[in-house]
């Protein structure tokens, strides 16, 4: 299974191509070395042979045939096997003098260079050695052959040939083995990704690609794909929650209205009662539509592309504006709403969404805290901004912390106050969009909701830039949780 995958994989094909190219270039290199070496050696032999012949022809020119015969005989007697070959034959190729016993057959027809392997030359050798000679026809009809035993050279060539064949074969084998092993590893890692994809298609988004902890590019790919899956899963969960919420929380009021209208339809017409009923139903429908819009809005914020349409927003100024809007509401409740802000507290964000989120927090604090509310904007860390909305109210039971961010979740004691349980869900979505950390902190008494925004770097100010810090999905719950609104 894995082997067939290995053979089919593109990495393996690439490895094979690489091996072929490498083998060809090594063979070419060896070929060139072979060619140039043998050429050099052959030229040296040819020069030696030509020099010998020149010498012999000189002897012939000075002393005639007898001097040549004498010279050859002397040489044959003193050093018969030094590699030099000489033979002088008559017009019918019958040897006269020299160290060859027989005039070679190949040399009978032509003059010039010949190569041949006589039977009787160096009879103790393992094979018939190769000789190279220059044949000259002398003016008196005799033939002179001067040559060299070049068997050394051919042996050298054979060695190079063997080395070449062996080397190239070994190289190709090693490269192929390396190719297969690399491909197997690659295929195995890809197979892990594929297996996870198939598992996700078959069962659901819960699966994750295993990492090996090597921090190599495969692990990075796996991690990136995993975080992508994480985000997709979150969005899908969001969509599912919305449809669940619609099923549970919007159907109820719609059913109620439907029942009311049905009853009214059956009853006798009464102008006053009908008018009251219609007005009541319109008001209630408005509430349903509002809730519906809020749900869609939260989902839209959650799914929105980060930083699209973002600009630098002075959070301090914004907080003052929101506090100003809620000033009358605080006055009506007989409590104080104070706002203290740093001189400049720039964050990168969407002003409308930040305004809305802060409105929800202040509204919650006023509504449920029933006490003075403090809004503060101050520097946080190196260049971050921390926004805190603090009240002095009764707080929230410890077990409710996580649930207050759920859509439609409302605490028992807050059911009598107006609200739809979506306020904090929106705050959370806006915080995530802005890469801000949303935390609930024990206020002693009361509680504080903290929003910590990342530093606004220079590049962030340019449109479409990424936020300085990746948004953290994790929300800290320190002690008391705030109430949903």
């Amino acid at each position, binding site marked *: 299974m894995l082997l067939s995958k290995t053979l089919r994989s593109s990495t393996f094909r690439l490895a094979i191509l690489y091996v072929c190219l490498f083998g060809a270039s090594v063979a070419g290199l060896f070929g060139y070395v072979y060619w140039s070496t043998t050429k050099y050696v052959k030229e040296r032999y040819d020069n030696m042979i030509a020099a010998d012949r020149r010498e012999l022809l000189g002897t012939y020119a000075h002393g005639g045939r007898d001097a040549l015969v004498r010279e050859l005989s002397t040489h044959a007697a003193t050093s018969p096997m030094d590699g030099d070959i000489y033979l002088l034959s008559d017009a019918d190729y019958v040897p006269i003098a020299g160290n060859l016993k027989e005039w070679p057959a190949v040399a009978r027809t032509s003059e010039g260079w010949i190569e041949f392997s006589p039977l009787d030359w160096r009879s103790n050798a393992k094979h018939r050695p190769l000789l190279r000679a220059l044949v000259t026809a002398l003016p008196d009809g005799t033939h002179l052959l001067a040559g060299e035993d070049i068997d050394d050279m051919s042996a050298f060539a054979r060695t190079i040939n063997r080395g070449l064949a062996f080397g190239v074969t070994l190289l190709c084998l090693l490269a192929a083995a390396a190719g297969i092993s690399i491909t197997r590893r690659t295929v195995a890692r890809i197979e892990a990704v594929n297996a996870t994809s198939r598992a996700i298609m078959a069962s659901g988004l819960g699966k994750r690609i295993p990492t090996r902890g090597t921090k190599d590019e495969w692990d990075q790919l796996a991690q990136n794909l995993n975080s992508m899956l994480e985000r997709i899963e979150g969005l899908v969960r969001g969509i599912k929650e919305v449809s669940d919420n619609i099923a549970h929380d919007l159907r109820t009021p719609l059913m109620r209205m439907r029942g009311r209208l049905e009853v009214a339809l059956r009853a006798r017409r009464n102008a006053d009662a009908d008018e009251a009923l219609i007005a009541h139903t*319109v*008001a209630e429908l*408005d509430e349903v*539509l*509002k809730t519906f*819009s*809020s749900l*869609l*809005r939260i989902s*839209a914020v959650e799914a*929105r592309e980060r930083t*699209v*349409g973002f600009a630098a927003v002075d959070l301090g100024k914004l907080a003052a*504006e929101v506090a*100003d*809007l*809620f*000033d*009358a*509401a605080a*006055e*009506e409740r007989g409590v104080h709403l104070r706002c203290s802000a740093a001189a400049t507290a720039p964050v990168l964000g*969407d*002003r*409308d*969404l930040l*305004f*809305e989120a802060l*409105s*929800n927090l202040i*509204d919650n604090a006023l*509504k449920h805290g029933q006490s003075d509310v403090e809004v503060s904007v101050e520097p946080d860390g190196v260049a971050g901004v921390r926004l805190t909305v603090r009240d002095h109210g009764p707080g929230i039971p410890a077990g409710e912390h996580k649930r207050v961010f759920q859509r439609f979740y409302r605490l028992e004691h807050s059911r009598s106050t*107006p*609200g*739809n349980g*979506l*306020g904090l869900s929106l705050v959370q979505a806006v915080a995530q969009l802005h890469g801000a950390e949303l935390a609930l902190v024990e206020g002693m008494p009361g509680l504080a909701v903290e929003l910590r925004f990342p530093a606004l770097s220079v590049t962030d100010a340019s449109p479409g830039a990424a936020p300085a810090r990746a948004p953290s999905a994790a929300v800290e719950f320190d002690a008391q949780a705030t109430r949903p*609104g």
Partner: protein
Amino acid sequence: MAEFMRKVLVVEDDRETAGQMAACLAESGYAVDLAVDGNEALERGRSGDYAVITVDRLLPGLDGLEVVQRLRTTGVTTPALIISALGEVDDRVRGLRAGGDDYLVKPFALAEMLARVDALARRSGTVVKETVLRVADLEMDLLARRVRRGGVDLELLPREFQLLEYFMRNEGRVVSRAMLLANVWDVHFDPMTNIVDVYVGRLRRKVDAGDTPPLIHTVRGVGFCLRAPQ
């Protein structure tokens, strides 16, 4: 107020919605023409002499934004109210950039739609640069930043002053909560709470103090209206 019948072009492909809008506008004294698709809207928009055009964003054939854009390029400057089911901020910005003058998110209350159309219809008239606004015995000096009711100085916070100025500039017209938030606080969202009512309530206590005849009225289901007593 209307010396002549002002005409409104309603571009909406859903017949029932279009009918409701037409009925609501007609009740307030507008003559209403309907267009059910983009091409019809272009034709009528170019030829007719309308005070306001309302355009649904999602239309069969030609997109609502495209309609407004083409009208603008052909020199039609009639104020346009873009109506859309897409409420995200980006969509609103895109709508205004295409040449729309206001943006209303579906679903909307008819009264809200009417308030927006009224505001746009007024905008198409001449804007007078006054330095003093007057409604009955209420007087606002925009240069001295001073407000008097029946000759008595009112102490207003800066934002309350802005709010009252907006009311007085729209005297006799219904302004919705969303319009107040957009024009006085410069934010675009629909608050889940009655925060605007509370704020207007405080302003009303200052303006309509004692047993003076009230100027600021709540209009059920929509918003508020500042008008001189009859």
